[in-house]
């Protein structure tokens, strides 16, 4: 089923490309509706994929059927169309349907629902303004998830701001940074299968949540997720052995990390792409441990595959090329192992340069804070001016210099750690005093 959904998305995206429409700039909606049907002997899964909105203008379904179905869904069986009422809510939002494809899957793989969810989520991470609605109906129960990018170019997030952000602003999400483009050589086996032309990868990194507006906050990178997309911006499915083994070939020290470990297969299924867990350094200094808890960040590394071949212009050829690229992806990556590894290393290093500088600054601030506190308390303690001493104690509402010391320390740490410096590039949402609780149907990056 995932393959079919993938093909539909490729179809729509490539159509849009041919019409010189960039998928990133055009809005629209995608509905993936799955429902169960109990037949005489077996329960089957039915799936309908519908698209509407400006992003699929120009699609003529009647002209494309039935060749399209054969081309896109060679393994799928036909099924009855979905309940029109299910489609009403969708068309109310995005206008009349431009595309509606239905098919039946008899032998769905385990965890199919999680896989579809993950795939749709990964797709939404690289395709702004396409709102995706996934709905599954089973025995009178309905499960629904919506996926979209909230803010164009600024990757709005759903990260709840830390509790200490009582005033000021919190940048929702992160800021994609375009990396270098790396040409790839096509391995002979792929060429034998018909893959020609120029192939390259374009890297984009996104560190989330953004803490640029809080330059003194400690941060901790906990995960790195590598997402691979085909030339049509549709995610490549399935785990990648190349990326799973990549940490062994990275120079973590040069990047500024202690180590990277690839997450378990189960985690991969649920998270999309390849996820690395970042090894954390042991904190021996108890003073450091008591500092404000570091903001946990994750790094998204987008790998966009780009392909151009002047002899490939038919839609079916382009879709076939995408399938070929995905099928031979491991081979392609291994054929360019050194270059790809170096490119990933460079992207990680560039992204983490700022993080590493932040750590150094924090060490400097911590050392200086000790001197500031020690000096202030030394003068208060050794002063014979009762008015001065009382004014200091009264100001901090303390009764003696011992309590004053602890209070000043905590206050200095708080004001310096949470220093707020507004940035034009940040989406600065005002933090509400009583933030709303999470709604299960809304997921955003």
């Amino acid at each position, binding site marked *: 089923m995932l393959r079919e959904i993938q093909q539909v998305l490729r179809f729509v995206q490539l159509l849009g490309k041919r019409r010189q429409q960039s998928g990133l700039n055009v809005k629209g909606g995608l509905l993936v509706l799955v429902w169960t049907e109990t037949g005489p002997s077996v329960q089957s899964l039915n799936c309908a994929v519908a698209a509407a909105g400006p992003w699929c203008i120009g699609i003529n379904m009647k002209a494309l059927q039935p060749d399209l179905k054969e081309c896109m869904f060679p393994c799928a069986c036909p099924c009855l169309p979905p309940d029109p009422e299910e489609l009403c809510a969708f068309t109310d939002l995005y206008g009349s349907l431009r595309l509606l494809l239905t098919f039946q899957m008899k032998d769905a793989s385990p965890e199919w629902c999680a896989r579809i969810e993950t795939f749709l989520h990964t797709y939404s991470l690289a395709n702004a303004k396409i709102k995706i609605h996934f709905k599954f109906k089973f025995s009178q129960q309905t499960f629904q998830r919506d996926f979209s990018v909230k803010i164009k170019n600024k990757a709005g997030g759903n990260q709840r701001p830390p509790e200490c952000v009582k005033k000021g602003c919190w940048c929702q999400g992160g800021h994609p940074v375009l990396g270098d483009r790396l040409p790839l050589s096509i391995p002979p086996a792929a060429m034998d299968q018909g893959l020609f032309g120029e192939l390259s990868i374009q890297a984009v990194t996104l560190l989330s949540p953004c803490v640029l507006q809080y*330059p*003194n906050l400690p941060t901790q990178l906990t995960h790195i997720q590598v997402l691979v997309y085909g030339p049509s911006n549709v995610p490549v499915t399935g785990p990648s052995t190349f990326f799973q083994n990549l940490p062994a070939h990275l120079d973590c020290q040069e990047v500024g990390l202690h180590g990277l470990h690839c997450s378990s297969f189960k985690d991969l299924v649920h998270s999309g792409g390849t996820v690395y867990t970042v090894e954390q350094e042991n904190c021996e200094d108890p003073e450091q441990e008591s500092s404000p808890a570091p903001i946990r960040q994750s790094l998204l590394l987008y790998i966009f595959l780009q392909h151009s071949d002047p002899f490939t212009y038919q839609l079916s050829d382009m879709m076939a090329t995408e399938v070929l690229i995905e099928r031979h992806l491991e081979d392609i990556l291994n054929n360019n192992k050194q270059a790809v590894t170096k490119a990933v290393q460079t992207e990680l290093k560039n992204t983490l340069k700022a993080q590493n500088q932040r750590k150094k*600054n924090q060490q*400097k*601030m911590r*050392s*200086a*804070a000790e*001197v*500031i506190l020690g*000096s*202030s308390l*030394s*003068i*208060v303690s*050794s*002063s014979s*001016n009762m008015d*001065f001493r009382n*004014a*200091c104690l009264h*100001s*901090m*509402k303390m009764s003696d210099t011992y309590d004053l010391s602890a209070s*000043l320390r905590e*206050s*200095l740490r*708080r*004001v*310096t750690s949470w*220093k707020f410096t507004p940035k034009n590039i940040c989406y600065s949402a005002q933090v509400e005093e009583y933030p709303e609780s999470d709604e299960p149907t809304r997921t955003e990056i």
Partner: protein
Amino acid sequence: MSLMGSSVAELFSAIDKLRAELLNNVEVLTDCQRVEGEISHGEILSLIENVILGIVTSLSKDEAPFLALPDRSNWANISFDSAIGLRMTLGSSVTTIRSDCPSSVTKFAQILKIFVVIYKLVQSNSYATKRFFVVNSHFEKITKLATSKGLISGDLCYMEEDGTRIDCRSCSAAAAVSSNIAGIRNIVSHAKFIMIVEKDATFQRLLDDDFCTKLSPCIMITGKGVPDVNSRLMVRKLWDTLHIPILALVDADPHGIEIMCIYKYGSVSMSFEAHSLTVPSVMWLGLLPSDLQRLRVPEDVLIPLTKRDESKLSSLLKRPYLASQPEWQKEMELMQQSKVKAEIQSLAAIAPDFLTNIYLPNKLRYGGWV
């Protein structure tokens, strides 16, 4: 010319006349006025306590403390007073040193640490050198600073605060300028004039040539280039005590002129202490740009002005104090026109002992200063 053949009266007639003029024209600070400018121990402690209270108050309001210091490098904060020199004016631009910014937090901490040391010194009524501050403040970088780099020689004896007796009359070696100028007492000197020498090389040459004996009684002092605070304090102290002419012997180049201006009018960075550091009565003895022409100093020892020299010269001519020194302006304009500079050592091209035996004695005898 033989120095021994001239009477002392003839040799110093011009100097004595200058001294009389200076005593008539220049405001002399009395001891009372000097004491007025001083600050009491209690006031120092209070000032520091106010800073600390400010920091505590900021933290009590959940605000990051900061220090606001007058910007000592900004000419906008400087005004010229002919009686004092360059002085800092209050209420002008300030530099903010924040405690929540990595680029300034170290400086913030250093300032507080210095306050602690000062506080304790004042409480115990003692003093310390800058080296003491650096070594005891546990900073990462320890810079090696000389306590005082200036040298002094000539007809001068005094006692330091700890009772050490300093006699500068040794012919062959100079005494180091004291670290604690404020503590100097019992100054005894019959010197007719004080000569500020820009460079240590020239100072040593004059020592070797026994200048202080030949032109006795006199005092010679060098700050070895740009003078440190102690050297400037020493010159000021000698002026306040002896009220004798102070003559500067610097290279005929913009750098030398600037050094002379520091002694006379002060520097931007220390303008807040101008009243205790400047000696507006300093006269320019040499090497004057006009001397180069007059003495026909060989061209091969003259050095063309660099772009940097020309830029500095232009900047000097725009300084507020030059307006009251038309003779200095003329000399500097002459340098601008000739586009050449010369070191004092260039006089050796005329004759090896020209500086000590001809140039300086004639300059002093005939009032060749501006």
